[in-house]
């Protein structure tokens, strides 16, 4: 066990503090618990599978907004672009095509939409980027109603599920989530991640070091669009319907932000934890006590409290607490 830990530390930890036993144990237990979830999950397996998808969204938001500090209020546009691409192809163009064949197209569309938003706005500092993403979300939402003869309007489109086997469905969401987490963790701990953080902390300094900050901001958006596209595709085929309320409403974008911030933005691991916490509350725990609007209200109040009183995120707090406990041990 400690052998594995040392190897993980030596691959990841040259710039960051090494994990100690407690931190490594936490990750290992969480990972094993997820992998064997069908054994213990029972009726919560659906919630856990949704947690996987939203973890992808939260990480996708984090690598762009959390790392560079350019807050996007329209990340649901990216996942929505992939979801609607998939749905429109299946409904209008090629109903008989294998669903998986659409995945690359859906992801590509998400990247294209992302670049359309990012290229004009990320050259500038200030709130312009947030504005454009917010308005893009509104336009997309309105567009799904305007083009209702293609999109099915409020009802949306029926696209079919990837599988009806709940265990298989869980793994179809878990594997991409873990792969994306590994890729983004690697990137965020590489030079790219360091530059993105530097942009957040002091963009002028990055520029004066001779680094083109705009280029890296746009790259972070591409890095973000790819997971958003994959997540959007998985989400579209999770329950088999693509409708504006579940896919592109502004609340979905705010949810992604809330997950990332609750876990601790700018850390990749934090948003995963935040996503499971948020989805767990939303679909697992709160529905037992509250219904409909009351449930949302309670959820948002919890989010507000976390944002205000634990602005670095709950998972990050836990992580550093574990790190402090055995400071001598980790050396």
């Amino acid at each position, binding site marked *: 066990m400690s052998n594995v830990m040392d190897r993980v530390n030596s691959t990841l930890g040259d710039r960051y503090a090494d994990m100690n036993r407690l931190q490594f144990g936490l990750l290992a237990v969480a990972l094993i618990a997820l992998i064997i979830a069908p054994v213990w999950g029972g009726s919560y397996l659906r919630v856990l599978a949704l947690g996987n998808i939203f973890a992808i969204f939260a990480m996708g938001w984090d690598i762009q907004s959390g790392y560079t*500090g350019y*807050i996007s*209020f329209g990340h649901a546009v990216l996942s929505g672009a992939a979801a609607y691409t998939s749905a429109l192809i299946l409904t209008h163009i090629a109903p008989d095509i294998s669903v998986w064949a659409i995945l690359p197209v859906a992801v590509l569309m998400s990247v294209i939409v992302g670049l359309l938003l990012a290229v*004009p*706005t990320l050259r*500038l*500092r*200030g*709130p*312009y980027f*947030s*504005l*454009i993403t*917010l*308005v*893009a979300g*509104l*336009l997309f939402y*309105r567009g799904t109603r*305007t083009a209702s003869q293609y999109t099915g309007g409020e009802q949306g489109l029926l696209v079919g599920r990837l599988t009806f086997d709940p265990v298989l469905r869980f793994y179809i969401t878990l594997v991409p989530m873990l792969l994306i987490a590994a890729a983004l963790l690697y990137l965020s701990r590489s030079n790219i991640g360091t530059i993105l953080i530097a942009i957040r902390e002091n963009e*002028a300094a990055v520029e004066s070091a001779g680094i083109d900050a705009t280029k890296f901001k746009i790259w972070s958006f591409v890095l973000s669009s790819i997971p958003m596209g994959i997540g959007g595709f998985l989400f579209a085929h999770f329950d088999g319907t693509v409708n504006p309320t579940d896919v592109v409403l*502004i*609340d979905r974008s*705010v949810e992604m*932000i*809330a997950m990332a*911030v609750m876990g601790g933005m700018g850390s990749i691991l934090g948003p995963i934890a935040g996503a499971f916490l948020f989805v767990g509350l939303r679909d697992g725990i709160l529905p037992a006590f509250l219904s409909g*609007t*009351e449930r*949302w*209200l309670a959820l*948002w*109040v919890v*989010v*507000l409290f976390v*944002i*205000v009183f634990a*602005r670095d995120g709950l998972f990050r707090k836990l992580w550093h607490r574990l790190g402090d406990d055995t400071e001598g041990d980790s050396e």
Partner: protein
Amino acid sequence: MIEGFLSLVVTGALISAVYALIAIGFTMIFGVGGILNLAHGALIMIGAYAYLVVTSTSTFAAVSVPPILGLVVAVVAAAAASLILYKGLVQYIEEDVIITFLATVVVAVIAAEIMTLAFSPNPRSLTPVVPGSISLPAVGLRIRFIEIAGFAISWVVIGALWYYVTRTDAGRSILATSMTRRGAKLTGVNISSVSTQTWLIAGGLAGLAGVFLGTLQETAPLMWLDPLALAFIIVVIGGIGSIKGSLVAAYLIGFLETFTVGVLGPEFRGVFSLVVVAAVILVRPEGLYGREFIDE
């Protein structure tokens, strides 16, 4: 054709006046504190619902005041909500721009859920402040009195605000703070009282706009979103922090939207505004009357 044009001009002017109220409050808060208050749309919504509660018997059968008093209640309610938002939340987190951004948008979502809970998600219609309408068949025009009232009140309020911030010491301290916070502090401006005033004014303007917007369009829990996006667009075009810029850009966007909807149809609402914003961002990022961002 010419009649249609005329009616679009009139409608555009009237709705622009309401947009100006929204954008000026939004930009003042940014100017003074560097805060983008994403709960601004929620204040508009609070104004509209406050008006609904006191003027219609549907919520409390015993409460039904004349519309003009309802307007006052809406302004006071939104101003109070704005101040509570600042004193209770924003002033503790304002040094962290990102957290303020996120917290205010969550506040807006919470406000929308509360309204859904209290008034159902269905749109409600408000009793017009001034009922009735005037028809000018000669030019094919029909104007509702509420639109005229909104236009007139908007100009009176903006005029009063202009007088306040340029001619009185209390108002000029707001202007000074938005120019340079440190300079204002050094010349003895009480920053805390300036912030309080600004949030009260912005809330009041939002409440006022909410009543007119809620009457002309609809009063619904999702009504915080479109005005917020509009305020954002207008403020970027006019120049962030500039009251004059907001006023000019409000009319620009108001006319643009009215003509787009009138000529091309409602599904194009917002598209051209986005094009204009993109053009402004690319060509003149500081906006029409804005200053460059100064690093604090």
